[in-house]
């Protein structure tokens, strides 16, 4: 990367026209396969969906008159006699971030054409994702059954708390569930050797892109909904 240090004296204008020139060359605009380009564009679009959800939530949260429930109390669990705030969410977040790690390893082994390790790691990723959804189901059940939180109201405060909680985590949970199914299908096809002929394991990376995106979105939901 010695070139980059030499490029310090390039002005912004030169840099911008360089980008335009680069894009306007006789080539694909991005040096990636079609499927990967499409996944990136889809994720950009999906980013706007989640942003709209979160911005709408922030707007309501900032202007609501009724009191907002204290999230660290609502999402607290009593484990072994200790009352620990946000413990379940912390575990869920840990699980999901871990699954991103296994996914990254799967992509690496995919490109090395190490099929068994790829399948194993993808299965682990899907399993971690499924356990995330399972814990979410537990969280929902606890809120609905034990604490009486409903989408249209709750005993703790503003009705919108439940509305946004179920809508945003539900929409994200659907993304995770879809991802688990998607990863399982791709893992199965890798196991069956569908990509051996072409030797092209980009599909693993494309599935990985989606998975990392879903994890990244969770980080924002975690920060804005649970920690705020």
């Amino acid at each position, binding site marked *: 990367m010695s070139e980059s240090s030499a490029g310090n004296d390039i002005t912004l204008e030169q840099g911008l026209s360089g980008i335009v020139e680069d894009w306007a060359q*006789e080539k694909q*605009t991005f040096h990636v396969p*079609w499927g990967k380009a*499409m996944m990136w564009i889809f994720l950009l*679009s999906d980013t*706007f969906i989640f942003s*709209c959800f979160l911005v709408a939530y922030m*707007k309501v949260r900032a202007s609501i*008159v009724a009191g907002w429930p204290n999230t660290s109390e609502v999402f607290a669990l009593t484990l072994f006699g200790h009352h620990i705030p946000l413990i379940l969410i912390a575990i869920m977040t840990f699980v999901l971030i871990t699954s991103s790690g296994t996914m990254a390893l799967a992509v690496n082994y995919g490109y090395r054409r190490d099929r068994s390790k790829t399948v194993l790691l993808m299965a682990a990723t899907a399993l971690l994702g499924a356990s995330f959804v399972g814990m979410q189901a537990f969280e929902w059940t606890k809120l609905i059954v034990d604490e009486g939180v409903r989408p249209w109201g709750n005993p703790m405060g503003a*009705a919108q708390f439940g509305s946004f909680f179920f809508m945003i985590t539900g929409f994200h949970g659907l993304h995770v569930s879809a991802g688990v199914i998607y990863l399982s299908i791709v893992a199965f096809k890798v196991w069956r050797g569908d990509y051996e002929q072409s030797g092209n394991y980009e599909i693993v990376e494309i599935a990985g892109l989606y998975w990392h995106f879903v994890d990244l979105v969770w980080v924002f939901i975690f920060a804005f909904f649970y920690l705020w």
Partner: protein
Amino acid sequence: MAYVPIADRGQEMSHPHSWVTKYVWSQDHKVIAIQYSITAIAVGVVAMVLSGLMRLQLGFPDTFSFIDPNQYYQFVTMHGMIMVIYLLTALFLGGFGNYLIPLMCGARDMVFPYMNMLSYWVYLLSVLILMASFFVPGGPTGAGWTLYPPQAIAQGTPGIGAGILLMLISLGVFIVAFTMGGLNYVTTVLQARTHGMTLMRMPLSVWGIFTATVLGLLAFPALLVSAIMMTLDNLIGTSFFMPAMVSMGELNEHEGGSPVLFQHLFWFFGHPEVYIVALPAFGIVSDLISTHARKNIFGYRMMVWAIVGIGALSFIVWAHHMYVSGMNPYFGFFFATTTLIIAVPTAIKVYNWVLTLWRGNLQLNVPMLFAIGFIFTFTHGGLTGLFLGNVVVDLPLSDTYFVVGHFHMVMGVSPVLVLFGAIYHWFPKITGKMFSETLGKWHFWLTLLGTYSIYLPMHYLGFLGVPRRYFAFDGTDFIPASAEAANVSITVAALIVAATQILFFINVIYSLFYGKKADPNPWGATTLEWQTPQNPPEHGNWGDELPRVYRWAYDYSVPGAKQDFIPQNVPPEAVEKAE
């Protein structure tokens, strides 16, 4: 690593053989384009009939017993939503986007043909869901096409049961369909162009459609989110948008919702949507004008940057639709400023169209007439837009017919004129037959003059203060009798324009069967779609070898060349010199 054009990597094309795989479950972008177009036009005819019914009521109140106030609002709502989303968006992007992108970029098809096919069938599903709302108890929703809460789902609005639900579901399904198609269009333009087709050699049609698709992919999410939230408010009683209020003498069961939140989400989609419709029209009209003026487009690079710039700006102007909702004056100042800034790239485009016409060898055939008509109607609608972009002018005019006139001029008539021009222009390529010039010219002149006699008086009505959205004007003494006369004349003109469209259908259907065989390149156009080995192009578009592009799309009347156009795929050494 040497560059290997991806379109050249030998992927076997399997050509369909049975009638069903060729014309029904087709993965060919050209067939999908025609399916999209036919569906969009069919549903557009429904919306046109609805507008005729509205005009009957406004022109001749107390005459037609079959139009009651509830139905009137249902007609307004369905007319608006169908025209904006299910006709214009679908026809420009699903129809022309599908047809033109692979042909103009020199690709064999969209990058993922199967997903492209799904896109159409999901779109058809959304149309069917929307049409079903005409037949459910209570009828379709009458909330106004913007579906503003609280009235969209409050007691007293027509169609608050199944009607609004079907509308919201249909919108959601449409967005899924659009996303599948849109990802294809964007990826195809970025990644699947042929040799030599650099981004700055692409015809402006492709630039317009491409930028509009990007806008769609980023703007429809806001509509999806607002549709989901309103569905939840309606179905299970959440309070995202619904405040506590008394309607029809009853306290509703909502509390603390924010109706203005919906307006922000809706217009964050709604304003880019204007450009989702307008940018393809800009692009296509540039190509029509350049081709039929036998002259290169003036300022090609500026035209491209104007399209991209308008697209980017369209995301930061949305609240100019909400001046009357009330906002911090600084916000009004911000949104008025950004709105007026959009006039700069738009004006560049208009100047460039006019300068392309300047001293051109104008061929006043049907597509060209529509293109020139567009310049008039668009300039007209754009100028009234400058009035409405200012907060202080907008406040008194916002709820009057001035807005209806402005909006229909700029987003109704203008794109529709381009659509007609484009259909006439590419008809010989799509069908291999020529249409009737005479019928086409009648269609043009009646449509252009007719629409002017519809929408010009509306500006006058607006200045008089005639409120829009009203079913009847009883008890509004400030409205002079001349307004009623204007309303009658508008209605008569509207019915004539509606009837005129029959000429278009006769022309298309008659020419399809009995039209004389078209030349493969009847207009002498340079772009790739006119250089296909077969006319109309077959599955795979290019026969055995992909075309190679040597020049931009606008080599018309090049000095020293024998012909007055040089197709994009003619190498420099093959250009015939003039004697």
